């Protein structure tokens, strides 16, 4: 997982995940989860093709901003153990 510091925008430029029209309503659970999945899928695909994972950093930033830390930790632990329920 990339360091958040590497993704820091230049001073004076704010960044927070923009409005995602796929998830326009109050329930943003899927928004967080989808970006988490997309990040890991992107990483896996880029690694498999031998390319740089730089484009995947967008998904990392979005899920890092949206998902509660405890959820991310739990999912990361599950991925390590091989018990993660999502398809990556």
């Amino acid at each position, binding site marked *: 997982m990339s360091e958040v510091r590497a993704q820091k925008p230049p001073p004076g430029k704010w*960044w927070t995940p923009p409005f995602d029209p796929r998830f326009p309503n109050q329930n*943003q659970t899927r928004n967080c989860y989808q970006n988490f999945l997309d990040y890991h899928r992107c990483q896996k695909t880029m690694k498999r093709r031998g390319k740089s994972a730089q484009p995947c950093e967008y998904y990392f930033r979005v899920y890092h901003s949206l998902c509660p*830390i405890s959820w991310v930790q739990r999912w990361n632990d599950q991925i390590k153990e091989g018990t993660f329920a999502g398809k990556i």
Partner: protein
Amino acid sequence: TLMIVFLISSLVLYIISLMLTTELTHTSTMDAQEVETVWTILPAVILILIALPSLRILYMMDEITTPTLTLKTMGHQWYWSYEYTDYENLCFDSYMTPPLELDPGELRLLEVDNRVVLPTEMSIRMLISSEDVLHSWTVPSLGVKTDAIPGRLNQATLMTSRPGIYYGQCSEICGA
């Protein structure tokens, strides 16, 4: 309460019986066309005048704006934890100050040990969830109340126009 029910029903029945058993009759023409028209049209107009701004506000509430900051809050029994993760991982717990530990002038049951600090005049995305049971995060003066449901991430938008201290209390029964 039953006494009041009996009282009111007996009063109504008495008035009905009075109306039915009178010997007086109305002898002049019963023409009330003008007043009937007025008191039908006028309330309708008043209701429309109320409804139009109300609908405007209703749709304004669903306005989509791009926020400038995201703040996550997780409800626990019985404190809130806040996470600012747009840049660094800043997270802290916020417990209510027990009444015995308050300084003079502080508000009972409202003060906390670590306050949430937010910039003014910026649209802030609040993501609210819970780590154990149902809670509800609210700041009445900012017009925000959103339930904190474990396993679900609820979004609310905040915007303060003035600097100041705003208080709120958990608005969902969350345990003994």
